[in-house]
């Protein structure tokens, strides 16, 4: 099992980087995601127009050099709007990932490690998972009122059980491993066993799953805004752009094509990343999601 050559053992960081980007899926995913993230972060500087700048003279113009993605019914520049919309989408998804990961890891580790908590937590997860994700999210948004925070919270609650399931399963496997038993036999305090031995070894499956939740959250956010129950702000989102562009799609198909492609590419980058990471971390996990 001494597979590491001396060269890579000497520079483990470089070696793991090479391993990481030697995987084509990860490389493509990371590059696309980087473009999406940079575009969103630098939106005010790279967008040629303000996202809400009206120009009735220029309404419903097709793609051209002046307006790469064309203009909408109010003459707003689709390219600029799509870039700004990425900010909301990324912000929401990132928030969702944080909330669902924290909740999911807490519930999953608790259910997997402490036998007594397993049955009640698992039943709760079963119940939460029996609500279709969009339906649960829109019900929560309807109850809490549509705002950035509530959308994040609603989707975070919706996706937490998914993560919790995976974490619980991995914890159950881990708990039986001799090195965990050895830690118990050595008299290590439980919190230390959980942190050093359980969580440390869960990091990879959690990372993989969080990437997939990121992708799902992005799709769900787009669906919610498309339905008109998403984040209500003046800022465009890909979903609202599609919803309003719908009416004009016969004459101005670019209104739907570009925001749609923005969603597809962003989600695809995350799927690629998650898939590649999963293959890298543990081929056996491939059947889990």
């Amino acid at each position, binding site marked *: 099992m001494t597979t590491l050559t001396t060269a890579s053992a000497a520079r483990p960081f470089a070696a793991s980087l090479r391993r990481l980007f030697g995987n084509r899926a990860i490389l493509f995913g990371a590059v696309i995601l980087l473009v999406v993230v940079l575009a969103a972060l630098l939106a005010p500087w790279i967008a040629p127009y303000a996202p809400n700048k009206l120009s009735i003279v220029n309404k419903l113009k097709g793609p051209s050099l002046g307006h790469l993605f064309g203009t909408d019914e109010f003459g707003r520049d689709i390219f600029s709007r799509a870039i700004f919309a990425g900010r909301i989408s990324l912000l929401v998804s990132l928030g969702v990932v944080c909330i669902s990961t924290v909740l999911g890891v807490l519930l999953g580790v608790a259910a997997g490690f402490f036998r007594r908590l397993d049955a009640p937590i698992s039943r709760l997860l*079963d119940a939460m998972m029996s*609500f279709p994700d969009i*339906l649960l999210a829109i019900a929560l948004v309807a*109850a809490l009122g549509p705002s950035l925070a509530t959308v994040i919270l609603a989707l975070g609650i919706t996706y937490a059980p998914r993560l919790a399931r995976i974490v619980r399963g991995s914890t159950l496997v881990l708990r039986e491993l001799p090195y965990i038993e050895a830690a118990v036999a050595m008299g290590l305090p439980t919190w230390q066993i959980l942190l050093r031995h359980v969580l440390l070894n869960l990091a990879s499956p959690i990372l993989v799953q969080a990437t997939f939740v990121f992708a799902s959250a992005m799709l769900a956010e787009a669906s919610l805004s498309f*339905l008109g129950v998403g984040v209500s702000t003046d800022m465009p989102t890909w979903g609202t752009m599609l919803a309003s562009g719908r009416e004009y799609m016969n004459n101005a198909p670019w209104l*739907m094509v570009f925001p749609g492609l923005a969603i597809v590419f962003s*989600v695809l980058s995350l799927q690629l990343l998650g898939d590649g990471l999963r293959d890298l971390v543990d081929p*056996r996990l491939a*059947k889990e999601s």
Partner: protein
Amino acid sequence: MARIARTLLNRLGGMLVVLAIVVTVVFVIVRVTPGDPAAVMLGSDATPQDIADLRTKMGLDAPLIVQYVQFVLGLLRGDLGQSIFLNQPVTQALASRAEPTFFLTLFSILIAVSIALPVGVLSAVRRGTLFDQIVVTLTMVAASVPSFWLGLLLIQVLAVGQGWFPASGYGGPDTTFLVRLHHLVLPAIALGVVNSALITRFTRAAMLDVLGDDYVRTARAKGAGEGRVILKHALKNAMIPIITVIGLSIAMLVAGAVVTETVFGLPGIGNLVVSAVLRRDYPVIQGALLVVAAIYVLINFAVDMLYVLVDPRVRL
């Protein structure tokens, strides 16, 4: 048979517990609304008297625990409350919208499974070939497409462009089933294709997993041909996790149906829910959520029972 009966009883108990939690969660969700739901529902130009009347009508004046008990008792009688806006019982509203949703879900799962199973199996068997790489790439892309966007594209190309299918609606109330079916083709494709991507990937992974198992080697050592090894020995074992994912994907289809129905203007439960959310029609939201979750729990129960047939080891 005793084995099956025992498993059935055991699972039945578990299912009832889950259902009880579902009911409670639904009750809580609708009541976490900040402020007064009655005021929210009626909007800004309602008089205090209107609001008070609505509160009484919805039973909001009673303490929470009483509301909960009344809610559960109502459920046991099959009463999901009254929709203020539709002016009809929620059960009736749901029942009248059930047909399009049912057929949409049914057809899209049929489309998804009939694409996913053969393609996933073949892709696993031909692992690493050009075919496999194309499948892996396509499913990855398809899983990244929002179904509503695919729906919009389909409408644009096949309905508006080619005129092969109606762009929207479910036909009139008096149309034949064939006409309605025609209306369902595009939405079922939009929903089915996206989900088939997920099931294909899963089928491929499950098959790859099983193909590495020892008993597959035993079958080959016995002299079984590849066809027999794959279709008999591997597939039956791979079906065990695949059944689970098909069960799970039904929930995703229902979630997708909410959006797809809106895109295609299908008068289904999804459409009802979206308009209920926009109108803050809480009893309808509550009822729909409950019914959909309960159906899902029942489907999962059925999936568990299927296990007993496929996997002789299952016994609880």
